[in-house]
């Protein structure tokens, strides 16, 4: 779907200040040099396997399948990776690349804190300096992850500007990058931002669909009928979709955070409520007003609380290859509770958005059909927030 200018259809590009252009060009050149390098890939695979715990399991959710009475439901257990989410796949790849580029310091944005924790973790392992930018609103929602990052030796800088959420953390990390480029790599956490980030992050996350493909063929003797993943910026979703894009019979479904509903202002459902724009380095779909002011989006999930979406998703949607459905806070919380009770797995509230759609879809499908839900992260970090959502006075 990509071309040399980093475009996905009309989306993508490099809409960034001139100060950063040589930095992204340097990154692109380094990636082109190392992506097919046997030593680089051997080191990457070894770290993914020995340190991050790959391959992750494709688990047949038997009780969920019986209860829903339709398609066979599998869970891709990215929640079992080290640091508890898919984020580590990309971080390991980018940090190995950064080290080969001679960088000694990394900066990152984080929403729910999962990407920040993954970056702080690998920085600790590699002995690199690490600064994570996080919206002050998110620091409150995800206090445990803030402490985790500090425990791992990272500095966490609160971002109070704007809505104090993921969007503002991304803006501030870009600002910091323009300030200090020479020794610093920006470990962007999703398939967004200027080229080459959407391509690099997608390639490092594509291990998810590569494994699903093999595991599903081994377990079912066929490809899945549908792959479902939650979408904020879209990294776990593109990772789960990528190796199925050419298989037209595999439905690819992204689940956006609808917050309190797509007919309210308190939503983060970019595809369903946004329109094309240019922001954070890319052309894609964004929640915005009639004058192009970026909308203050909302979701119970700090990881999906973002007003844009990666450019490859925008192109997949334009081409009709993937569909993007809205899932509300309430639906996600119900799915969060459902999976905990039914399978003994507490999912991240982000991943619960994908589960909610699977719960709705499975009964409408035949028992010989297969759904794979990408369980992108585990829910320990969300327990206190969900308790509060349900009216219990519980704090981290």
């Amino acid at each position: 779907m990509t071309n040399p200018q980093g475009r996905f259809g009309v989306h993508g590009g490099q809409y960034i200040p001139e100060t950063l252009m040589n930095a992204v060009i340097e990154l692109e050149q380094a990636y082109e040099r190392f992506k097919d390098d046997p030593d680089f890939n051997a080191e990457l695979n070894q770290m993914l396997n020995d340190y991050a715990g790959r391959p992750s399991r494709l688990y047949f959710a038997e009780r969920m399948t019986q209860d829903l009475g339709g398609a066979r439901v599998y869970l891709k257990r990215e929640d079992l990776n080290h640091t508890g989410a898919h984020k580590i796949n990309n971080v390991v790849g980018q940090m190995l690349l950064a080290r080969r580029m001679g960088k000694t310091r990394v900066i990152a944005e984080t929403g729910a804190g999962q990407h920040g924790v993954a970056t702080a973790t690998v920085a600790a392992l590699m002995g690199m300096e690490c600064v994570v930018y996080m919206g002050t609103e998110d620091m409150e929602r995800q206090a445990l992850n803030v402490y985790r990052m500090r425990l791992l030796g990272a500095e966490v800088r609160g971002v109070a500007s704007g809505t104090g959420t993921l969007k503002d953390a991304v803006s501030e990390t870009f600002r910091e990058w323009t300030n200090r480029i020479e020794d610093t790599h920006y470990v962007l956490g999703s398939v967004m931002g200027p080229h080459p980030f959407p391509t690099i992050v997608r390639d490092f996350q594509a291990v998810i669909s590569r494994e699903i493909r093999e595991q599903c063929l081994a377990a079912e003797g066929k490809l899945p009928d549908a792959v479902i993943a939650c979408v904020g910026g879209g990294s776990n979703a593109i990772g789960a979709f990528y190796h199925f894009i050419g298989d037209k019979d595999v439905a690819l479904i992204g689940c956006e955070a609808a917050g309190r509903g797509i007919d309210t202002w308190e939503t983060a459902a970019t595809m369903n409520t946004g329109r094309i724009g240019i922001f954070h380095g890319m052309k894609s779909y964004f929640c915005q007003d009639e004058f192009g002011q970026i909308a203050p989006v909302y979701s119970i999930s700090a990881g999906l609380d973002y007003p844009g979406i990666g450019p490859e998703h925008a192109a997949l949607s334009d081409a009709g290859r993937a569909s993007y459905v809205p899932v509300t806070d309430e639906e996600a919380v119900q799915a969060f509770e459902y999976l905990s009770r039914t399978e003994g797995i507490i999912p991240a509230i982000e991943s619960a958005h994908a589960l909610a759609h699977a719960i709705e879809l499975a009964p409408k499908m035949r028992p010989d059909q297969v759904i794979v839900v990408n369980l992108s992260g585990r829910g320990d970090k969300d327990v206190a927030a969900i308790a509060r959502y349900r009216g219990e006075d519980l704090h981290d």
Partner: protein
Amino acid sequence: MTSQNPVTASSARSSHTASAFARGKAFIPFITCGDPDLQTSAALVRSFAQAGADLIELGIPFSDPTAEGVTIQDANLRALSAGTTTDKVFELVHDLREGTNGPAVDIPLAFMTYANVVFSYGTERFCAAAEEAGIDAIILPDVPFEEKGDFDAIARQHGIDLVSLIAPTSNERIRMIAAEAAGFVYCVSSLGVTGTRDAITTDIGSMVELVREATDAPVAVGFGISTPEQAAQMARLSDGAIVGSAIVKLIAEHGRDAVGPASELVCAMAQAVHDI
């Protein structure tokens, strides 16, 4: 925008934007339109023109100005909270050019805003409205050389210069960027975002030299200039100085009463630059 002057080699020289540099070194102040309100913005622009500004940069507020430091970020938010919209900024410029509610402003005016403000309005519709209002140039800090195709050709059709920026990290890119410059070249003095700095350590002289090898368009230096002395120092190395945050700080401090103190600073800076 064909030039009537047969001896002018480059379109950069012939544009109204570049006329800001015709009398010598140029002083270029910046304000965010609508901060604290549009009436104050109109009064500020008129007073800056009288105080000796050669070109004025008019910021159209954007919700998430990623190239700005805290001072101008806050100005953007104040302007948006006051209900400023792109359409109202067009009206402001129109009134300034027509002399509605005050003297008409004749010096070149440039918009400074972000790609999405232009793109979401419709680039063609935006440039047509900007031309109609009397804008000479547009500066988009999140549109580098590689992406200017979206905007450049349309702006040109409306007689508007899309100003190119170069940065301390541009190195070998400077020649390529400068060769296609329109209006003037905006030389970013320092790494980082906008905001006042105690000292500018970049070798501005070498950057300007590289630009001059590729174009006869003038070069103005911006980012981090906060005193008349710094403005003169940067203008000595180039063709002009651009000052934003130092002025916006005074507007933040004095609100609707900012015209006096802000034009006093602009007057001192313009004089320092013109005296070179």
